[in-house]
């Protein structure tokens, strides 16, 4: 049956049909839905791991045992999983293993726009790159064939536009595929004596995969009607933009396998079409390869290394005219994302901003605490860096910083890689105060369970890490829990913990208001007879409160009645229905 599927759902379907039995992943936009969709199948195993390294090693273990497996992550997650990746390239696999990685050109939801293809080259692992949902499904099956034929894990690289675009996809049937496990120390124990022997295997494998790339249908030439006297080499979503602009008027070498890249195929194509343009988002991977094999191409001098492409990028580069449109004279104010009405993070940020505390931040919804009017953050780098960064900041700053600096990190991010930083604080004793913003869910990626929530990916009861006990057991003596809706309590506890001459943890705990079990209360309204227009409530930065005609007003379609704003009003102007 044909249906509209986002690339990630189609990829999950493809993994399923190919007989994948175990998936372990950590959520990250734009990769999250691959695992969420796979979790809907009942005859397979699927989980959220604490981080991408754990996920990849879990998938490796499943492959070793003889089940086709996969792990999924966003581009920066692959940095976390890079350690097992490079050595798995040496061991190879038993049953097939696929690593799904989703890049985010344009940084819709990411802290950088690194190009994952570098990892494929560096680790010498083959990489497939679909350009729409049907290819995502089909490539998953091919990936397992390659994995088992060539004894290697295989990457499937998505990008935001392929991952999150729906296109028409045809499903197939699942096949079962298992292997026997037999002990093989020379292959699976990567101590030096064995690893030395495996490296030549890796180089031979790359040579064989290059041969495969020459004949595989993954790479195909569409000569078109030859209206234009040049050719284009492209892959992924850029292929769709090229076709949108040129249709069948130009010759295209469409690459579905971007590592290793073919040699003869590219040389033959170039010989036939003459001038060749390489159109690829981000870094010049295909372009550099072409130049290395002696094929002269035009690439990054015409197409940027920065951000996303579109049909317009390509049309403009070839001097085609822009389409006619309308522009307004009035400037439209920007509408950046922000913390939701009733978001529990806002209360803690309000207290930190009010007391002018330096705040090292982390990755999650709470990164939005950096936005006006709270402007509460000083730094955001990567998952877990708030905690380890705070330790270094205080080791460098000493008494000058210790009592006026904290870090904030979410419950899921703390499990991912914050706890190791906390162990360092406890072990090497910096006088640091760590605030865990525990909203009982992985929020930004759209509500995934994690080790602190007590539920697994299917919503069934699971093991639950107790944050207080964990912090105590790594050596933090002062662990306090506060309710971020109680501003007075938050302020008092933050001040007390900063004043202490020892490491401490404050757990700011209240579930995300978007969780189904959190029932919104009736919206508040502002009594215009009492409101004197002092705008103190506006400093809270709640999207429900705006200012009209000398008074603050509440948008009752947004307000969830958390009531924190009311505690800021010196004139008791905030009232709830019935008062």
């Amino acid at each position, binding site marked *: 049956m044909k249906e509209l599927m986002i690339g990630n759902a189609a990829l999950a379907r493809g993994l399923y049909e190919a007989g994948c039995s175990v998936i372990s992943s950590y959520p990250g936009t734009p990769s999250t839905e691959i695992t969420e969709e796979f979790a809907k199948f009942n005859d397979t195993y699927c989980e959220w791991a604490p981080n991408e390294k754990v996920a990849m090693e879990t998938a490796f273990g499943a492959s070793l045992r003889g089940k086709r497996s996969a792990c999924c992550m966003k581009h920066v997650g692959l940095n976390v999983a890079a350690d097992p990746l490079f050595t798995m390239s040496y061991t190879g696999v038993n049953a097939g293993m696929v690593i799904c990685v989703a890049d985010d050109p344009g940084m819709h939801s990411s802290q950088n726009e690194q190009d994952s293809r570098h990892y494929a080259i560096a680790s010498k692992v083959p990489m497939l790159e679909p350009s729409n949902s049907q290819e995502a499904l089909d490539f998953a099956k091919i990936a397992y064939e390659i994995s088992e034929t060539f004894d290697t894990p295989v990457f499937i690289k998505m990008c935001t536009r392929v991952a999150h675009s729906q296109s028409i996809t045809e499903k197939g049937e699942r096949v079962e595929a298992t292997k026997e496990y037999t002990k093989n120390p020379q292959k699976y124990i990567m101590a030096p004596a064995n690893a030395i022997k495996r490296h030549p295997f890796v180089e031979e494998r790359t040579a064989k995969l290059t041969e495969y790339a020459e004949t595989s249908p993954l790479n195909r030439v569409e000569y078109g009607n030859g209206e234009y006297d040049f050719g284009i080499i492209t892959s992924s979503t850029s292929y*769709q933009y090229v076709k949108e602009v040129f249709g069948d008027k130009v010759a295209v070498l469409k690459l579905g396998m971007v590592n290793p890249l073919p040699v003869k195929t590219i040389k033959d194509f170039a010989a036939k079409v003459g001038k060749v343009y390489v159109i690829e988002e981000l870094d010049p991977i295909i372009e550099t390869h072409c130049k290395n094999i002696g094929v002269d191409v035009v690439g990054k001098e015409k197409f940027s290394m920065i951000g996303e492409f*579109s049909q*317009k990028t390509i049309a403009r580069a070839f001097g085609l005219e822009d*389409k006619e449109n309308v*522009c307004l004279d009035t400037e439209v*104010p920007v*509408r950046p*994302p922000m*913390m939701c009405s009733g978001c529990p993070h806002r209360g803690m940020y309000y207290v930190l901003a009010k007391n002018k505390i330096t705040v090292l931040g982390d990755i999650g919804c709470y990164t939005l605490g950096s936005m006006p009017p709270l402007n509460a953050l000083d730094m955001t780098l990567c998952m877990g860096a708030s905690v380890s960064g705070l330790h270094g900041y205080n080791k460098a700053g000493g008494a000058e910083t210790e009592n006026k600096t904290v870090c904030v990190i979410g419950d899921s991010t703390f499990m991912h890689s914050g706890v190791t930083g906390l162990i360092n604080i406890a072990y090497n004793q910096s006088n640091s105060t760590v605030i865990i913003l525990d909203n009982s869910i992985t929020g930004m990626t759209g509500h995934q369970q994690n080790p602190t929530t007590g539920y697994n990916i299917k919503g069934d009861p699971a093991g639950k890490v107790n944050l207080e006990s964990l912090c105590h057991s790594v050596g933090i003596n002062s662990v306090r829990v506060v309710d971020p809706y109680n501003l007075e309590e938050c302020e008092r506890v933050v001040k007390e913990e900063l004043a202490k001459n020892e490491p401490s943890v404050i757990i700011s705990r209240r579930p995300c208001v978007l969780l189904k079990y959190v029932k919104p209360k009736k919206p508040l309204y502002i009594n215009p007879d009492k409101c004197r227009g002092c705008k103190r409530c506006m400093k809270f930065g709640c999207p429900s409160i*705006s200012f009209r005609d000398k008074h603050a007003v509440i948008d009752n379609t947004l307000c969830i009645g958390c009531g924190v704003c009311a505690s800021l009003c010196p004139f008791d102007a905030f009232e709830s229905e019935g008062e």
Partner: protein
Amino acid sequence: MATKNIMIVGVGGQGSLLASKLLGRLLVDEGFDVKVSEVHGMSQRGGSVVTYVKFGDKVYSPIIEEGEADFIVSFEKIEAARYIKDLKKGGTVIVNTQQIDPMPVIIGNAEYPANILDEMKEKGVHVDDIDALALASQAGSAKACNIVLMGRLAKYFDIPREKWESAIEKCVKPAFIEINKKAFELGYNN
């Protein structure tokens, strides 16, 4: 058929996902090649959001660029203005007259441009404005704004109303079908 392009724009959380799901379902059932593209994650947190729906004999790019949209369906006034550069010459803007202040306006760093729809009309844009929030409330739920707007969009298509209604039945939970059908009808007839 040449590809037709529809943009659905609004504020994260307003329900544009259901609108695009409905359109996608309808257009696939009508036998078109269809692509629907949206961005998840950071941009959903009350930020400006855009969804692209493209259909025709063969659709390549999933995104809509400047001057390419046949229709912009906007859930909020200034969001229509934000994306007006993407409207094709002669295209139509269907806009909910609701005003939702973005944070720079809330904190007093910017003014909400009150007469933005008039400016669009002065520039020759075909603006079809509708109080979708009021009509949705009349239908039984303020959340049904999205379907009111789909009702209005349906007037510009040759696809029979029953097909739209059947797509609503397939996309909406049973308990909400009646409200949404009513919302669709109010959007279509007002």
